[in-house]
């Protein structure tokens, strides 16, 4: 007792007690501060973050709302400041808290050392009874613990479990029964749509028999809809299911448009304007423009390429999937070859420069990833025909026409199959394939029929026949398997016998023609730049069926679907067809 009193008076004891109290108070204050900061960060900060996301969305919808913009910027700054401040605070606060707590514990021990009580060895205890009780309690406690643990384990046993061995066997069986789902449409699905320039085979032939032969633009009879295309372009529309796609571009803008087949409503616009690439726009002729190349689709994505060398993919509902820059093409009139598809590969005929420049190449890009699947160099000069992927008797072939080579590739690997040296400069008409023969055009001079079964250089052997009268410079030929038709820019329509190239007839029309002729339901469809649609019988004898006219400028070859024709003028898209 006296000892204790003495200690109480000891200044060291008082110091220890004081330090204990002070450090306890400091620790409490820090704990409160940290708790407040924690609550703030877990409640206030996430709210702010959400608000920022909302504001950013508002800014996208209303880009000119300065008030929201200012508020957003202020909030963003505040948010960032708070975050940095909190991290700083947490670092210092936690350290201070630990220090004060250690100080508290040490000083408490120090203080209590002054009034430590002496042990009392004289207390009553029955050690023997205690030992026996301890032993029996010990057994009971162990038993209780074991029962508790065991019941947890037994409860787990009643829970359902997955047998992965069984699941693996099941999954295997299922896999064997199911053919693998290819990541691209079948050949038939391609044929049911109009997925590229001049249709699924690129030959300008529609499989549908119910294509209307005319319309009246004034009364709108036979015209389903007409809609404005926001950006100019000479490329042809493509159709997949219920959607029509085309692209448009100016020097600075590059866009893709998706229209509804039934209403003509613009569903979405895909933008590829602000991609990195060349600083200056490419040199193009006015007749070519910046968007002469037609798009293509595999029913999963749509793909577009522009004269600037930018190529991009959007999903059918308008999400950008990938975009690439292939380098500005060195092309005298401006790049114009259209894209085509083989399975999931987007085929780009990238011909540029002169024959010796070694700049030209074929590129196949994986549609889903945007990565190059294969690339093949070719010794040709800049050319403007579009490549076609066709199914010959034995295999698929990718046939390309250029100056001076006509080359066929295996579309899966890019391996060269055969090549023929038969073309010259300024190649523009695209090749077609019909009934075992490929047809290519040397502008103004020759229509050439080629056998497609060769290997290697077949210049000497593959040419079946050549015709030299009424040969176009821009429009591609079209064939119904028994005749081949050509249309010159000046308006001369010629008909050649399929088997020997003998000219059967020719007919002159007024006006200028850039759109290639097409065949649907045994009729030839011709579109003049001035907007005339001329329908004649595709037969060994000339017979005009009907003439219609839109007051617009038509350069692009139309797209044909079930009962519908899609005509793209520079600024508009028309849908011809009978209303139900």
């Amino acid at each position, binding site marked *: 007792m006296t000892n204790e009193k003495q200690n109480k008076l000891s200044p060291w004891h008082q110091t220890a007690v004081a330090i204990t109290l002070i450090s306890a108070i400091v620790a409490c204050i820090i704990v409160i501060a940290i708790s407040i900061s924690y609550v703030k960060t877990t409640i206030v900060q996430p709210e702010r973050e959400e608000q920022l996301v909302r504001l950013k969305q508002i800014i*996208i919808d209303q880009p000119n709302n300065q008030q929201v913009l200012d508020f957003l*910027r202020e909030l*963003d700054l505040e948010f960032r400041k708070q975050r940095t401040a909190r991290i700083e605070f947490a670092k210092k606060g936690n350290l201070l808290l630990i220090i004060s707590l250690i100080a508290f514990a040490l000083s408490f021990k120090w203080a209590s050392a002054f009034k430590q009580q002496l042990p009392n060895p004289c207390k009553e205890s029955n050690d023997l009874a205690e030992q026996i009780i301890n032993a029996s309690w010990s057994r009971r406690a162990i038993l209780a613990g074991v029962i508790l643990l065991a019941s947890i384990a037994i409860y787990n046993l009643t829970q359902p479990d997955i047998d992965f061995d069984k699941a693996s066997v099941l999954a295997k069986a299922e896999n064997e029964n199911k053919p693998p789902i290819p990541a691209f449409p079948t050949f038939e699905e391609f044929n049911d749509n109009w997925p590229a320039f001049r249709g699924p085979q690129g030959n300008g032939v529609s499989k549908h028999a119910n294509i209307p032969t005319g319309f009246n633009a004034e009364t709108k009879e036979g015209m389903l809809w007409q809609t404005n295309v926001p950006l100019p372009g000479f490329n042809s529309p493509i159709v997949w299911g219920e959607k029509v796609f085309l692209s448009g571009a100016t020097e600075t803008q590059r866009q893709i448009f998706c229209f509804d087949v039934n209403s003509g409503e613009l569903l979405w616009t895909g933008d590829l304007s602000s991609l*990195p690439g060349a600083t200056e726009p490419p040199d193009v002729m006015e007749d070519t423009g910046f968007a002469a190349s037609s798009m293509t689709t595999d029913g999963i994505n749509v793909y577009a390429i522009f004269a600037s060398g930018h190529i991009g993919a959007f999903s059918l509902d308008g999400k*950008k999937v*990938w*975009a690439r820059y292939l380098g500005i093409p060195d092309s005298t009139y401006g790049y114009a070859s259209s894209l085509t598809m083989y399975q999931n590969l987007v085929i780009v005929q990238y011909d540029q420069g002169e024959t010796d420049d070694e700049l030209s190449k074929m590129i196949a890009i994986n549609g889903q990833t945007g990565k190059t699947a294969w690339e093949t160099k070719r010794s040709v000069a800049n050319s403007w025909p579009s490549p076609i992927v066709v199914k010959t008797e034995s295999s698929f072939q990718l046939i390309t026409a250029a100056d001076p080579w006509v080359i066929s590739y295996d579309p899966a690997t890019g391996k060269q199959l055969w090549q023929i040296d038969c073309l010259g400069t300024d190649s523009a008409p695209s090749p077609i394939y019909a009934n075992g023969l490929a047809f290519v055009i040397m502008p103004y001079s020759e229509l050439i029929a080629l056998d497609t079964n060769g290997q290697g250089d077949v210049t000497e052997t593959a040419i079946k026949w050549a015709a030299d009268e009424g040969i176009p410079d821009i429009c591609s030929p079209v064939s119904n398997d028994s005749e081949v038709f050509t249309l010159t820019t000046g308006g001369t329509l010629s008909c050649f016998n399929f088997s020997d190239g003998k000219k059967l007839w020719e007919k002159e029309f007024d006006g200028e023609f850039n759109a290639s002729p097409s065949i649907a339901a045994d009729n030839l469809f011709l579109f003049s730049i001035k907007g005339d649609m001329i329908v004649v019988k595709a037969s060994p004898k000339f017979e005009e069926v009907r003439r219609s006219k839109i007051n617009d400028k038509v350069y692009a070859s139309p797209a044909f679907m079930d009962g519908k024709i899609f005509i793209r003028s520079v600024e508009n898209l028309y849908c011809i067809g009978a209303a139900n």
Partner: protein
Amino acid sequence: MQNNKKETINRRRFLKETCFGSSIAALAGLAAGLWSKTSPAKTVWQIDPEICSSCGNCATYCVLEESAVKCVHAYAMCGYCDLCTGYLPPDPKDMDTGAENELCPTGAIIRTFVEDPYYEYTIDEKLCIGCAKCVKGCDAFGNGSLFMQIRHDRCVNCNECSIAVACPSQAFKRVPFDKPYILKGANNTP
């Protein structure tokens, strides 16, 4: 009696010696058994950027207040795009450094003009929280030159990395101490 006691003590001592000897032997055996499996250097944790799915867990699961995982830029792979999908959100209002046009929630990417039309992007590690938003953007449309790495000046090298536990793509690996980074495009540059 005396003898008996002595015997007991002897037996106890013998038992004790045996236990002692056997435990020493056990420890030596364990050490010898594991000796062939030891690596002289320590290992550190690192993210394999090819596996990383930029989920954003790195920002929240690190034991440190500020995650030791930061975004890293492989400049040699960068396209220096004006429209950088790692820097700008989808459909940006403008292509500038306004708060509304930054994908990074902390503004940790610095965009500097190099020459028309190229911009350099650098990461301010003090601000980066490792949320991987920019990595996701860059991977989706760009060259994938932005990627996540554990910064070893910050990492405390936990015996079991708590982000590794939470990593959905299991991209965390133990790598040797002398090669502590898995850089993208590193094999492209000499």
